[in-house]
Structures are given as C-alpha cells and as structure tokens.
C-alpha cells in the first residue's frame, strides 16, 4: 500500500483555489472586513450575525493526487468542497480548473464544467430512490443527453468497476449502505470526470466496509488516475488515503502537507491535538527512524579495520557492504578479534549473513516485530543497498511520540 502513497508530483495543478471565502448571512461586507482584521469566527458571528463557512482558503491540487480535506465537524469542509463546484456561491476568491476561473463563469459554462470535469459523491449517498441502480449510474450522462444505448453501456461499465454488475435492475433501497455508496461512486465515474469530489463519502459506513471502500478507492485511483478531493473528519482515513492533507479549523486551512509532515511536524497545537492519538506505528516508516549506518567495505577492509571501527563507536557488530553499498552481512567484534589473532585478512571468512533487514518504507508496526529478538541493529535497505540502521532505542522513542524523529530523509 505504501508505494501508492508517494507523491504523484511533477504534474500541473488541476485545481487552484485562491483566497476562497464563504460568509453565510446578510452582513458579508462587514464580516469580510473583520476577517481581514484577523478576528475569530466566533467574534465575527457575535459582531455581525454572519457565519464564516470558509475563511480565505488557498491551495492547489495536482492531477492524479488524492487531496484530503480534514477537520472537525463544523470546520467548513462541506462548504469548501461545495464552493469548488459552486453548489455554494463564493463570497470572494477564485477557483481555477485547468486554468479557467469557475467563480466568474455564467450558468451555462458552469454546467459544462460540472458535467465534464467535476463529479461529486455524497455522504448519505444521495441516490435517486425512484430510479434503478443502472438509471442512477447513468444520471450524469442522461443530463448531457448522451444517446441512450451509449449511456447505458457506460453506466454499466462504471458499475462493473465498483463490482455491482449483478444489481443493475434493483432500486437503491434494496442495497446495503456500502453497496449504495458504490452506486454513488459509479454514478460519479460514469461521467469520466477529471476530478472526484467526495464529501465524507465513507463516513456513513461501518468500519469494516469503510476500510474495504478505502482500499478500493486507492486501487481505483491507481488504475484510473483520477484526481480526488476527499473530505473526512477522520484522521486515520485521511492518513490512509491522502497524498496530501489539508487541515481545517473554523473555516481556515491551518496546515497542508503529506501525512508524514502533518504527523511529525504539526504546524500548531490544534494540529498536534488532532494527531495526538493516531497510531504512529502505522504511519511512520523505517525511513523516519533510521540512523546513518556504520559499515565496512568488504573489498577494501579486513578484520582489523572492522574491529577498530567497532571499538571507536562502542558497538559489538558492524555491517558489511561492497563498493556499490550492497549489503553483504555483518561481522561481530568477537569474530573480528579472533580473525586478527589468526591473521585472517579476508572479511568473507568471518562474515555472517543472517542479517535482519527491512525496506525503507516498512512501517514501524512491522519493524517492531522484526527488531524484537534481534540482538543486532536492523539494516534498512533500498534496492538491496544499505540506507541506514535502526537501533531499538529509536523504535521506542518513536513509539513514545518523541518528536526528535528525524525528518531530514523525508
């Protein structure tokens, strides 16, 4: 799962949101002025009677990434996602999609964007109860007046993608929650949009189904390369899905970053509170807690050098690599000292290969199992080349939530 989490960087931003603001209520001018003066949402509500839904949000979303917007209930997530397709009219700010400003479009142009580029998946599914599953899935195409046989075909394909081909003639009420949301997803995918807007799409599902849907979404995203803006109030979900996460509070975005950045370097107390009780073992990887490795080169060094290094560092074993830094194994201080006495020159003779190694993106959760019962440090490799070592102390420190975890590799 982890390789999917790597940033799909390098792309052009597909959505650029600039200074996007929504004030609910009559006194929007006054509220905007107070907002610029830095007053809080509550103060603005007291002074003007207007509610700040979204407070000057700016961010950009790259093509093909899963961008998660996270925050507590009432923090403005739903408002923000509805500003993006203008189900809610912005009070100020702009939304650029492929460089076109949605906030300035007339109704017709806006409809075209909604039909072709943006599809939405809703928290409580919002399926049409008077239509069959197939008719639900073809809704977006029907709106575009796509020819009947073609739209049925495309809707059927979309339903197949989400694993629902057997149910097309049922009505939504005959399906379980998880299946209904698959229909919601199929309805959104049938349009073949560039961007999926998903407002707490999995929040109404029970935990097991929810995990399953998250995994499927990740797979779908990997195969279809859709850009996804995913709203959630659940940090675990955000961390599982997000390439990047934006954290919202009181309508404003307080931090944007990769899951690791958010966990390891929370921007402020609010974010820190939010991430406090996340299970860090599932997020942090070898890469975050490894140290620079001490190693000897099997092609240049003999037991004598190995022993010297170990004595200097105060360690009882040392890793052995070749000139390309491929990991060969390790030698112990005892063996090296014997070899020195017996005048053995070649490290190969005392090399031990039962080394424990992990990949750079192995989660701490798994490292914990590996390191337990291993007397020597665990080697971290990347393409079989030595990248670092993990000593037990570092694992314990990371588990304890020590923020000293090193990020210079990130």
């Amino acid at each position, binding site marked *: 799962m982890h390789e999917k989490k790597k940033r799909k960087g390098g792309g052009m931003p597909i959505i650029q949101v600039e200074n996007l603001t929504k004030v609910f209520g009559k006194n929007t001018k006054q509220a905007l002025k107070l907002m610029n003066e830095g007053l809080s949402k509550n103060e603005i509500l007291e002074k003007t009677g207007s509610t700040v839904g979204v407070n000057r949000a700016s961010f950009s979303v790259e093509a093909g990434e899963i961008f998660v917007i996270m925050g507590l209930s009432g923090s403005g997530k739903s408002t923000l996602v*509805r500003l993006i*397709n203008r*189900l809610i009219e912005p009070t100020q700010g702009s939304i650029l999609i492929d460089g076109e400003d949605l906030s300035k479009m007339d109704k017709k142009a806006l*409809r*075209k*964007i*909604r*039909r072709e580029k*943006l*599809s*939405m998946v*809703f*928290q*409580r599914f*919002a399926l*049409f*109860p*008077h239509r069959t599953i197939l008719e639900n899935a073809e*809704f*977006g195409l*029907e*709106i*575009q007046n796509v020819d009947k046989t073609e739209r049925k075909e495309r809707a059927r394909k979309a339903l197949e993608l989400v694993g629902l081909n057997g149910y097309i003639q049922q009505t939504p009420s005959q399906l379980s929650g998880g299946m209904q949301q698959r229909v919601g997803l199929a*309805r959104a995918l049938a*349009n073949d949009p560039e961007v999926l*807007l998903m407002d707490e799409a999995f929040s109404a599902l029970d935990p097991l189904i929810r995990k399953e849907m998250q995994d499927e979404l990740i797979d779908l995203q990997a195969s279809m390369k859709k850009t996804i803006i995913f709203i959630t109030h659940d940090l675990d979900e955000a961390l599982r899905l997000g390439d990047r996460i934006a954290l919202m509070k009181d309508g404003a975005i307080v931090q944007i970053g990769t899951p690791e950045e958010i966990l390891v370097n929370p921007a402020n107390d609010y974010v820190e509170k939010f991430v406090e009780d996340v299970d860090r073992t599932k997020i942090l990887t070898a890469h975050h807690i490894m140290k620079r490795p001490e190693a000897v080169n099997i092609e240049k060094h003999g037991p004598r050098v190995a022993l010297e290094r170990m004595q200097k560092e105060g360690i009882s074993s040392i890793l052995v690599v070749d000139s390309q830094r491929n990991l060969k194994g390790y030698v112990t201080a005892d063996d090296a000292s014997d070899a020195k006495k017996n005048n053995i020159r070649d490290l190969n003779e005392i090399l031990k290969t039962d080394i424990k190694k992990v990949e750079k993106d192995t989660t701490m959760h798994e490292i914990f199992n590996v390191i337990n019962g291993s007397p020597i440090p665990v080697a971290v490799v990347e393409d079989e080349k030595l990248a670092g070592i993990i000593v037990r102390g570092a694992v314990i420190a990371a588990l304890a939530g020590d923020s000293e975890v090193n990020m210079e590799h990130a």
Partner: protein
Amino acid sequence: MLKLMSQIPIADYTDTFTKKITNAFSFLFDPIKEHFGNMMDFTSSSLSAIPPVVVIIIVAILAFFLSGKKFGLAVFSIVGLWLIHNQELWDKLMDTFTLVLISSLLSVIIGVPIGIWMSKSSIVEAICKPILDFMQTMPAFVYLIPAVAFFGIGMVPGVFASLIFATPPTVRFTNLGIRQVSKELVEASEAFGSTGAQKLFKVELPMARQTIMAGINQTVMLSLSMVVIASMIGAPGLGRDVLSALQRASVGSGFVAGIGIVILAIIIDRFTQTANNKNKD
C-alpha cells in the same frame, strides 16, 4: 359606541367592481362561456351516449387492476353504478362527472405550475399562501355569485366556482412536495450539471409525486362538492335533484340523489388514491 363612522359600503364596492370586471372582460367571458359550454355539453352528451353497461364494465375492469387485482372496488363500482342506473339517474351522473372531470383537470393544469412556482420562490410563496387560505375558507357558494355575474348560469359558472374553490390543495401540496425533496438529492442533480428543467422533471417532480397526488385527490373531492352546490346556479347533474327535492320537501328523491353523489364520490376517491398508492412501489 361602535358607531365610529357610517357603514362602509363594501358590498356596494364589490358590486361595482364585479360589474366593471364583467363589462371590461365580456370580450373574454362571452366566448369562454360559449365555446367552453359547447365543449362541456359535447363531453357530457358523448359520455351519455355510451351504453351504461359498457361504462360499468370499463370502470370495473379499471378498478380491478388499479387496486392490485382485488375485487372490492370493482364489485362496489358495479353495484353502485347499477343502482344509479336503476334509479334513472344515469344522465345526471354523466353531467356531474363531466363537471368534476373538467374542473379537476383545469385545477390541476393551473394548480401544479403555480405550486412549482411557489416552491421556487419564497416571495411567490409568501404572496400566494394568504390568497390560498382566503380561497379555501370562504364559504363555497359565495363563489357562485361572481361566477353568475361573469358567465351567467349553467355548466361554465359551475366550473369557474369549482376552480376557485378546489384548486388550492393542488397548489399547496405541489409546493410542499417539491420543498420536501431532500437537499442532498437536489444538490446531486445540480452537481451533475442539470438545468433547472432537468432538475424539476427528473428529480423534484418524481420525488414529490406522492404528495402532489394527495393534493390532487383533495382537489377532485372538493370539486365534486362544489359541482353539487353549483346546481343552485343551474349546473346540471345530481345536485339539481337534491336542490329540487329540497324545494319540494321531498325526502325520498333527495335521498336517492344523495346516495348517487356518495357512490360517485367513493368511486372517484378510491380511484385517485389507489392509483397513487399503486405507483408508490
């Protein structure tokens, strides 16, 4: 104490107003009266021309299938209609039915769009609501007076009075039904790029259908009651028998005509209701 001023001549004002309207719009009212009257006469005489047996069989078959292949309503229709025929009230039944049919149709044609308009605009809603209340609380036969002023006597003023009296439920329930459609569904249809008309016809009206049909059912029943009252201004039908029985204090024939009205009411009511319920699932 209460004699703050002499009596305000509201009645006179209304008279003058009605007269003015009648004169000003006679170019409109007269042709309506004539053509519309002809059309209704034609409808009712065509209905009367169908042999009663055929009508009864058709109604029974419809009743059987509409109520989900149950016999209750079908049997009731057969017995009830036969009884009316037996009492030699068939032609009058056809007249009454024509009036109900035409006036309910007009009520729906006028009422549903107004209801839709109300649901789309809070201002329109705020204006229409008190007017609808007024229309419904005014005693029904008050409407007969302007109806006579505009259209004279006969079927047309009957339909006019019924229109005013019976349209409000359709308007109200249409408005209510559309406003009750869940916000998420409306959002969903908009998010996929629906035009206003697509939203209305593909989502809002189908979702509100249940409620609108309940309103239409009320409209039909109200228009039946109005059509009976309209016999006072010369509308033909079963009501006229009740009226003349009243004038001659003849309990028996009044009762018979009354029974005829009740049978018609029950059949119409069950038909509109079961049609609605059946479509539900």
